């Protein structure tokens, strides 16, 4: 698997064939939800919408961790940045997300120490190097990311670090999909998140497929991965089938990454969690277990309940559940732009509204 081989998954001839097959197979309107924000971005960046028959509608799901992070959690990150002696470490994704009053970017401009890291492990290193500072890492992400944070907590424990803290806003995908299907959403098929699946394994979706009888395909992130998964979804639907197809078998096994899951289970408890737009979903959150609670920023710091209020007029909830698309939001492109985002779906680089804004002009089929 080198970049040479990857090229096959990007081959325009193959893409043309796949999109032709999709058009051929598709006989009736179909709404496919790509659960994962990275899929959303890949679809837009590669211009895939442009290659699909009009009958196929791609709707974006709740798979951008920044977008589904609850307003209170964002406000807590901001409260943490304001604490004395704290260096807040975060993935770049969170920097611009508007909290009720401020954002991490604005906190930094006011002189708070906010540091963008590429890995939770970089935050751990920061803690080891700055024994007099408290390093707090903003833990957001799904099953792909949570084990990396868990591994850092175990390592901090081994090193005996006393100045390393995690605020865990991690969430898990299957309960959210279950909740979504139980709502009044119209989804005819799921494109499943490839890298969450790497960890949880393909089999983790079997209960969902069974319970809701819905076509599902696990997809990689190259354009032809995505087209292939759409093709299988269309074929299933047209054949009246509801299966789980794994079109990303080079990375996703039926059982996933057991070691990563063990780390996750060792460090986190499953708890109810509040998702933006979806409300509280039972068992969908990961909180730090009692055994490691000395690393838990939500316990180590006083975080008086802020008056968190989701941005007025933002229909992120409807967007994240696939009920609406951004152009249906009255704020879209008017009061809400990437420069001045109102909701997180506009700020996250993989947020649905941002992707629409950036890549989706009036112009399609121009070539």
């Amino acid at each position, binding site marked *: 698997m080198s970049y040479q081989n990857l090229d096959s998954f990007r081959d325009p001839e193959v*893409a043309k064939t796949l999109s032709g097959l999709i058009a051929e197979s598709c006989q009736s309107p179909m709404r496919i939800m790509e659960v994962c924000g990275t899929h959303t971005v890949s679809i837009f960046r590669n211009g895939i919408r*442009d290659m699909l028959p009009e009958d196929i509608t791609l709707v974006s799901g709740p798979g951008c961790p920044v977008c589904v992070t609850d307003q209170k959690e964002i406000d807590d990150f901001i409260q943490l940045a304001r604490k004395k002696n704290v260096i807040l470490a975060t993935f770049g994704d969170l920097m611009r997300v508007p909290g009720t009053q401020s954002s991490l970017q604005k906190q930094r401009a006011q002189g708070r120490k906010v540091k*963008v890291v590429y890995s939770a492990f970089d935050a751990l290193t920061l803690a080891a190097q700055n024994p007099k500072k408290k390093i707090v890492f903003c833990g957001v992400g799904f099953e792909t990311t949570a084990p990396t944070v868990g591994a850092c907590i175990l390592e901090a424990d081994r090193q005996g670090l006393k100045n390393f803290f995690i605020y865990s806003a991690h969430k898990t995908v299957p309960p959210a999909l279950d909740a979504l299907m139980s709502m009044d959403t119209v989804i005819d098929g799921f494109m499943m998140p490839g890298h969450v699946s790497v960890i949880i394994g393909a089999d983790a979706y079997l209960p969902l497929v069974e319970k809701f009888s819905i076509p599902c395909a696990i997809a990689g992130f190259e354009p032809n991965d995505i087209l292939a998964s759409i093709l299988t979804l269309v074929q299933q639907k047209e054949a009246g089938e509801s299966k789980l197809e794994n079109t990303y078998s080079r990375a996703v096994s039926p059982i996933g990454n057991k070691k990563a899951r063990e780390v996750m289970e060792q460090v986190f408890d499953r708890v109810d969690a509040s998702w933006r737009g979806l409300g509280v979903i039972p068992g969908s959150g990961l909180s730090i277990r009692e055994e490691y609670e000395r690393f838990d920023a939500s316990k180590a710091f006083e975080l008086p309940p802020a008056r968190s209020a989701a941005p007025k007029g933002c229909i992120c909830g409807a967007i994240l559940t696939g009920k609406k698309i951004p152009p249906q939001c009255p704020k879209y492109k008017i009061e809400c732009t990437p420069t001045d985002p109102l909701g997180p779906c506009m700020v996250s680089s993989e947020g649905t509204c941002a992707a629409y804004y950036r890549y989706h002009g009036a112009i399609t089929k121009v070539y």
Partner: protein
Amino acid sequence: MKDQSILLDHGSGGKLSNELINSILMPAFDNAILEAQEDGAIIPINQGRLAFSTDTFVVDPIFFPGGNIGDLAVHGTVNDVAMCGGVPQYLSVGLIIEEGFEISQLKIIVASMAKAAAAAGVRIVTGDTKVVPKGACDKIFINTSGFGFIPDEINLSASLAKPGDRIILSGNMADHGVTILTQRESLEFDAPIQSDSAALNTMTAAMLKAAPGIHVLRDPTRGGVGTTLCEIAKKSNIGMKIREKDLPVDQSVMGVCDLLGLDPLYVANEGKLLAIVPPEQAEAALEACKQDVHGKKARFIGEVVADHPGQVVMQTAIGGARMVDMLTGEQLPRIC
């Protein structure tokens, strides 16, 4: 402007930069030459016109593979004058140095400036040095300003692109920005890449000689190729079509971009240019560009169209289409 305080993004070369410039600076300094918002000012004089440009360099780290803040500062202004069609001749240098800065480093930087100026055939003719207390600046900042006369037959402006024009990019995208990023402490890459920092005035002179009818020259620095094309599309009120497969990126640079989630289309270059050329002179311009030592990988990346004025559309590598928008704020390493 909605924000109450300056954010880093206001200096990103993207939309917030534009907003700052357009809502605060332009109205204040209100004049037609400035409003043209070229890379420098084009100034009519008794006989002929002058190109005049300024840039301040605050790059961190100040030494990086492929150059340092000194030669970068010379290249930057030389290029901006050249993009106006000027033949850069004279530069000024304004240094801001932090108390405690090592003289040995200053010597290296200044020697690089001198070497870069000599190589570009420009003279540094006036200067200013300020030292600020420890902590009041980050090591060293350099402003260069410069000017040069514009040959009579040359008429360049970002507002002159015409449907039918072809778009030339002189080489790989994103080398400079990615190089700088990989030098930051926390990212710790070991990458065989270096900044493309270079003076392009020889290239522009050759191109303008071969194709004096060139409509636009621009160096896609902060904001990258994507933002620069959008700016031209908006100013000329034309559309652009570009082809993803023709946008050259070094494979190592692409590797870093993939890992950090960056789009090379929006990453800074310091030794590349975009040329928008009427079709009849396009081949000649490309050929002249390719003859230059910094233009070997030059190629056509797209065309100007009458459709969708103000917008840049990209044919993706797999045959789809998508819009290319301006960069909003500095790209940050991300996991999503």
